[in-house]
């Protein structure tokens, strides 16, 4: 357990660094029984309880609560069971996502959800946010790959939701728990699905003169009935940053690139690749490169997954936004984002999952300047509104957390939000578990969060 101020500093925020808060103490349990004991203690003393994985979240989902206990699951990292014949594994919630796939990779299996933060983020965190990553278009998100969860409820009761077998009878409590952002219960163990690694992969880098051309190509690919394993876009500013960081060989004069990955059985894959090549050229691709071998593919994905980090080197601070729109509206919303950036005088880079319309505008700024912070929050708000205006969502994978709770009323009606609040009471009756997250604390006007306290110096 940690309680000295200098020890607590590390836990004062997640990757949403604009907001910071210190918990009363941080507890790092090593077993479900310890988690339950902490929960019982918090319950008996009426203390807020905030669960935390690796702290890679981008919406302030594990922001501490004043006077509360933070419960970090990072010491519960065991792979408890691997059952390849049944394509299942049982793991502790603090296990790092990439470690899970590594544990089964040699046998030819993987855990499909692979967010960019997978070398650090935990399975428990993935469950809390219903994490996605670049391969969700074909493979789905965390809720499609979890069969059962061991959960500690806020009163300390330990319960299993779902089942190792399919179609657990009754209400889909598992489906409700996934994506509940740590406000329904603390996940301690998960029974996950394993997927066989595909026999063959073709990874293409398609280069376009503009973001609009790349967006049109995305629509064309999906419209042609192709379901790529991944379909990612990076714009010029991202390309400059990743090329400086990784020297992959990205073209610095391109408007945008698409990373298109096809996978499946070897038979027929080249024909599909040829179809993709044709469609890209038909939509003004200046060049399409095919990754030569596994090493080339790995370097390309490393650059993509570290892109946001690379862009972050261009300025003291950055905020990675998250919004989803229908794929067909990509050109107009990307244009809107560009216009918003110009109007606010902010540099905005775009790297995102084009295949499912999940945008990640990265706004560059300096958080030491409160005026810039305010500008960024306002610009971010406009971007979210632009997503909603075309029938999208305020978050595709980062979650609502504290970052977006004030926007929930723009996407949902009062009745919808009341229903969500009622649902939360089923699991978290006194609201002590991860308070202030996901649901708006103050309903009504579109007040931008004004909780910024300034960066620690």
């Amino acid at each position, binding site marked *: 357990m940690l309680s000295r101020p200098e020890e607590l500093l590390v836990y004062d925020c997640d990757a949403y660094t604009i907001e910071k808060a210190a918990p009363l103490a941080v507890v790092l349990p090593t077993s479900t029984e310890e988690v339950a004991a902490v929960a019982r203690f918090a319950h008996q003393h009426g203390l807020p309880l905030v669960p935390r994985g690796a702290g890679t979240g981008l919406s302030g989902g594990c922001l501490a609560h004043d006077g509360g206990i933070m419960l970090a699951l990072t010491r519960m990292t065991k792979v408890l069971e691997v*059952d390849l*014949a049944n*394509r*299942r594994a049982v793991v502790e919630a603090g296990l790092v996502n990439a470690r899970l796939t590594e544990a089964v990779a040699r046998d*030819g299996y993987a855990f499909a959800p692979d967010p960019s933060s997978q070398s650090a983020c935990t399975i428990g965190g993935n469950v809390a946010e*219903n994490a*996605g990553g670049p391969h969700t278009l074909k493979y*789905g*998100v965390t*809720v*499609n790959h979890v069969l059962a969860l061991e959960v500690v409820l806020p009163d300390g009761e330990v*319960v*299993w939701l779902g089942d*190792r*077998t*399919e*179609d657990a*009878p*009754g*209400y*889909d*409590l598992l*489906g*409700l728990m*996934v994506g*509940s952002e740590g406000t329904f219960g603390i996940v301690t163990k998960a029974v996950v699905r394993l997927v*066989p690694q595909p*026999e063959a992969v073709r990874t293409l880098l398609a280069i376009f003169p503009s973001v609009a051309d790349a967006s049109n190509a995305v629509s064309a690919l*999906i419209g042609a*009935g192709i379901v790529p394993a991944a379909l990612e876009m990076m714009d010029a500013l991202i390309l400059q940053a990743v090329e400086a960081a990784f020297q992959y060989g990205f073209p610095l004069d391109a408007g945008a690139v698409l990373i298109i990955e096809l996978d*499946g*059985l070897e*038979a*027929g894959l080249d*024909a*599909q690749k040829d179809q993709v090549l044709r469609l890209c050229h038909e939509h003004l691709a200046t060049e399409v490169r095919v990754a030569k071998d596994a090493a080339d593919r790995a370097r390309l994905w490393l650059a993509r997954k570290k892109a946001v980090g690379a862009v972050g080197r261009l300025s003291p601070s950055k905020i990675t936004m998250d919004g*989803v*729109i*229908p*794929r*067909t509206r990509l050109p107009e919303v990307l244009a809107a984002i560009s216009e918003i950036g110009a109007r606010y005088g902010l540099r905005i880079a775009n790297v995102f999952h084009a295949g*499912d319309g999940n945008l990640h505008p990265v706004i560059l700024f300096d958080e030491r300047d409160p005026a810039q912070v305010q500008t960024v929050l306002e610009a971010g708000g406009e971007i979210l509104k632009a997503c909603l205006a075309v*029938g999208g*969502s305020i*978050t*595709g*994978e*980062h*979650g609502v957390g504290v970052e977006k709770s004030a926007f*929930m009323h723009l*996407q*949902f*009606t009062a*009745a*919808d939000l009341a229903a969500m609040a009622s*649902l*939360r*009471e*089923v699991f978290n009756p006194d609201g002590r578990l991860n308070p202030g997250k*996901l649901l708006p604390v103050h309903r009504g006007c579109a007040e931008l969060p004004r909780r910024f306290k300034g960066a620690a110096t």
Partner: protein
Amino acid sequence: MSSFALDGLTPGTIARPVDAAEAGRILAEAHAAGRAVVPWGGGSHQAGGNPLARYDLALDLRGLAGVVDHQPADLTLTVRAGTPLAVVQAALAAHGQLLPLEAEDPATATIGGLVSAGVSGPSRLAYGTARDFTIWTAALQADGTAVHGGAKVVKNVAGYDMTKLYMGSLGSAGVLTELCFKLRPLPATRPVVIAGFEEPGAAADALAELATGRLVPSLVTIVHGPDAWGEPYNLAKWLLVIGADGPRETTSWQVERFFGLASAQAALITSLDGEEALAVRQALMTPRSQGEVRLDLRVLPGQTALLLEALAFMPEGPPTGVFAEATLGVVRCTWATASDAWRAAATFADDLGGRWTLAAAPLALRREVDVFGPARPDRALMRRLKATLDPKGILAPGRFAGG
């Protein structure tokens, strides 16, 4: 359909709203008066659940029909809950797209009904079930208030995933009025391979290889049924049907491999393509609704062969029909006439550490047994959930796992 009677109860009122707003008003009125309501679609899946405690009003939602919006390039479809599946599939096929729902009677079964009853077919191996591709719902709460969950985009994590409340919950969580789904491209080819066996154990080796997923089958179903059910049930005692979905070059390769896997032990083996293959896929959905007792068993995939052998050699004889998604561990049994044989089958699943649900049974039996199987600790949460969603207990009271 002539009667709305269920569980020995006949509703005093049958309401047929023309739209969601009217449905909301009807429901609000019923709620205020404490009248118990059961939502209706095509009526093909009303046999499930524990007996209704009360039943005053049948809410026939077939007036809420039609496609609201189809965005082919976004792969999304919004449709009213009372629309028959066949109408949706025809509209989508015209654009080369597919909604991966399957029904025994697509012309009658409605979208809302299929989702509420948790109906799934063999293609779930490739595409998942309704909870995997339902992305947005509009529903009426017990008091008639309209609520929405999810978003009409293929990826979304805003708020709690309220769509999950309605998955398989037999109308007890709310009345679905409209749904939005994530679609799939219609595969260019959908061939099937059919292998016939004297007993299911002979297919064990083929199953083990298929379960690894390396051949990417889109369907692996073992079925058993009387000759009277027609093709393919009359080809052999036990059939292993393996499907592939995709471009011709890929599925031809797969079909060849499936042949290689199954032919060693099979008494007969054949492959079908085009319309014939589609007819077989549809036949695998029928006739599931026949039989006085229907039991759904769930075990681990690797236990399926064992379970099927136990079913094949029961002292009472095998169930009239068996439909097993063999690489998923989902085994559905039907008995033409009620007997206690289902208890032995349920015990097999219990002994293997699996679960079971009585999907249909005579009223007397459902009054005696909890159809959802022995309650586990999460049942308390389910009761709390139902009490929160429907404090007056007017939506199909008594029917689902939360009461």
